[in-house]
């Protein structure tokens, strides 16, 4: 009897299981409607909402096309995208990043959209930078950027005033002076939200670049015009001195391990005076209760001794999979997202620097925390744009190496000099082999 009962339960289980399979993956309908599979990489829930809105606008304008948006968590997204691309199924449109375009295109996973986009009238509206990424050096269009991630200096207007400064710092040296003045560990008041943890290399590289800004190769921000690396320049040693003094004198001691969540928290809870971060942080800070909107704003990036800084250009955009069977429709979706209102909505809602020329005229970018970006864009001789070699196939290797060695310096296992020597040797070696 019990035996029978067991069988019944097993049967019931299997039936449930079969019922689960009732809904199978979406495929093209018989009426000729094309279904596009679109995967995003730098996912966040708010951004996904914006994207869904834009997609329904697109579907309304293009009755024959439906779009299925796939939104994996951002930390696992690129691996999932690789899996899809490698298997050649399940993806038409995908988010391509400046750090993934190299590997993806080398492996033949990305489709060159030049033909589909040849007659696109959005080309003329793109900024010089956007156009540069949309068509690579070989004339191929693997992706159209949707916006740029830039950095600026978030600072506490009230705190620097109390400390007796009338204006925010413009250079790394001034930043060190002001941040040190703000630091008071006994009151849990810190000067600078130092980045020692994951991706800690980005800010130290920004400092080095600012110190060598006059000699930098704009096509490769890790190279000087004389062909040597920026890490070999004597100015790089000065940059490190200031940068690590910022850690010693003006930062929370545990910031050795700080990544973006701690940096943002430190600024948002009111205990830290300065924060060098992407504009995406603006939205988070506007919500913060510990500091009100009139207590903080942004300043342009700190400059080096010669009064110049390098604007990092990090970007991502939309591309088409080589394995897609709907390349024309994919290109249609991508061009829709890369022009006019759709593009403007996407960049503004996600706090990105726009890809469109006329965005600089929009009021959105002239007000509040955004004003520093306009300042930087209006002074390209001071805030020079130079492209970091983020498309190198060894970029993630470099990130891991440089993050780890930065921490070694912070915990006293390596000297600043050894750090620069190691980084110089690394890039010399890589460029020699490339």
């Amino acid at each position, binding site marked *: 009897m*019990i*035996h029978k009962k*067991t069988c019944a339960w*097993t049967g019931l*289980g*299997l039936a*449930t*299981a*079969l019922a*689960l*399979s009732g*809904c*199978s*993956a*979406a495929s093209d309908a018989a009426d000729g409607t094309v279904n596009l*599979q679109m995967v995003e990489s*730098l*996912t*966040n*829930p708010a*951004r996904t*909402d914006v994207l869904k809105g834009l997609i329904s606008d697109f579907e309304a304008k293009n009755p024959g096309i439906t779009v*299925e948006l*796939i*939104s*994996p*968590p*951002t*930390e*696992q997204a690129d*691996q*999932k995208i690789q*899996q*899809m691309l*490698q*298997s050649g*199924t*399940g993806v038409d449109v995908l988010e391509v990043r400046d750090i993934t375009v190299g590997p993806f295109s080398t492996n033949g996973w990305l489709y060159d959209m030049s033909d589909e986009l040849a007659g696109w009238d959005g080309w003329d509206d793109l900024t010089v930078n956007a156009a540069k990424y949309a068509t690579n050096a070989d004339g191929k269009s693997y992706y159209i950027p949707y916006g740029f991630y830039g950095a600026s200096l978030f600072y506490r207007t009230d705190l620097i005033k109390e400390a007796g400064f009338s204006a925010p710092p413009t250079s790394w040296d001034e930043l060190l002076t002001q941040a040190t003045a703000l630091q008071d560990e006994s009151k*849990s008041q810190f000067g600078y939200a130092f980045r020692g943890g994951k991706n800690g290399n980005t800010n130290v590289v920004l400092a080095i670049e600012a110190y060598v800004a006059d000699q930098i190769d704009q096509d490769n921000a890790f190279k000087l015009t004389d062909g040597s690396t920026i890490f070999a320049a004597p100015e790089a040693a000065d940059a490190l001195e200031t940068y690590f003094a910022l850690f010693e004198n003006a930062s929370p001691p545990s910031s050795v391990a700080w990544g*973006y*969540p701690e940096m*943002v*928290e430190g600024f*948002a*809870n*009111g*205990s830290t005076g300065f924060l060098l*971060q*992407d504009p*995406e*942080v603006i939205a*988070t800070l506007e*919500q*913060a*209760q*510990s500091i009100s909107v009139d207590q903080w704003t942004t300043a342009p990036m700190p400059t080096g001794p010669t009064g110049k800084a390098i604007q990092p250009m990090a970007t991502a955009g939309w591309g088409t999979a080589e394995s897609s069977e709907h390349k024309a429709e994919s290109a249609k979706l991508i061009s829709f997202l890369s022009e006019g209102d759709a593009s403007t909505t996407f960049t503004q809602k996600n706090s990105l620097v726009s890809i469109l020329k006329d965005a600089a005229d929009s009021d959105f970018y002239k007000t509040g925390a955004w004003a520093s970006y306009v300042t930087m864009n209006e002074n390209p001789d001071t805030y020079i744009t130079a492209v970091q070699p983020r498309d190198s196939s060894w970029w993630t290797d470099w990130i891991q190496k440089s993050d780890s060695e930065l921490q070694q310096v912070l915990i006293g296992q390596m000297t600043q000099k050894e750090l620069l020597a190691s980084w110089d040797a690394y890039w010399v070696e890589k460029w020699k082999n490339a």
Partner: protein
Amino acid sequence: MIDRETRLARTIRIVFLAIWLAITIFPLYWITITSFKGPGAIFSFPLTYWPEVFSLENYVNLFSKAQFGTYLANSLVIAAVAATVATLISLLSAYVLARFEFRSKGALMMAFLVTQMIPAFIALGPLYLMMSQLGLVDNKFGLVLVYIAICIPFCTVMLRGFFANVPDALEEAAMIDGCSRLGALFRVIVPVMKPGIVAAFIFNFVNCWNELFLSVTLMNRDQNKTIPTALNGFISSFNIDWGSMSAAAVLTIIPTMVLFAFASRYIVQGLTAGAVKG
């Protein structure tokens, strides 16, 4: 229970249990109060151990902005089905490994153990390819199949250990009384082994409930997402949405806690007197 406890032993026991309880639930407490803080209050400093204002905003957002109900239902169904089937299948294989002597037995045990040693990413590529050829990508049934498979080895080894505690005299007697082997297993041994089986089921359930990588890889659309994917979605490149995440975590913990509360009764149920005599 006959043995008596000295006063000292009793005090030690109570103090230890209390301290461990405090250590265990403090993070739960911390997540819970965070989930009731408004979006701006999460980063308040100095720390507040009790929210000044109780806000349900984070919970409301989960259901209004995200389809959290769908994810919960998906996870519940997938984990329950996979854990049940895996426990049943493992019961059979563990029984054989515990009760029979055959040449390849040791190798078989090792083969089950090896599956616990090898990192998942090695298998991920071929698995994805196979599942997409079978049409089982973005399909709950497909994920259930894979979850059953990944639960079986661990569950078998675990149940094999529990079988060893049950004297084989028990089912021998039943078989002499005319039971089939399967009948003896389910009629005589399963009731005796209930604590072990319930423990095995819990582990299967919790492992499926928390599984992230296979779920992210094999599921695409919102309607098929599971809880861990949704939880991980609150971490973006520039922000951890602590408010939504802690609210989601609290909602994720509740079903498991209910399961634990329900199951722990079976785990400590003990044996009916005289069921096992060595």
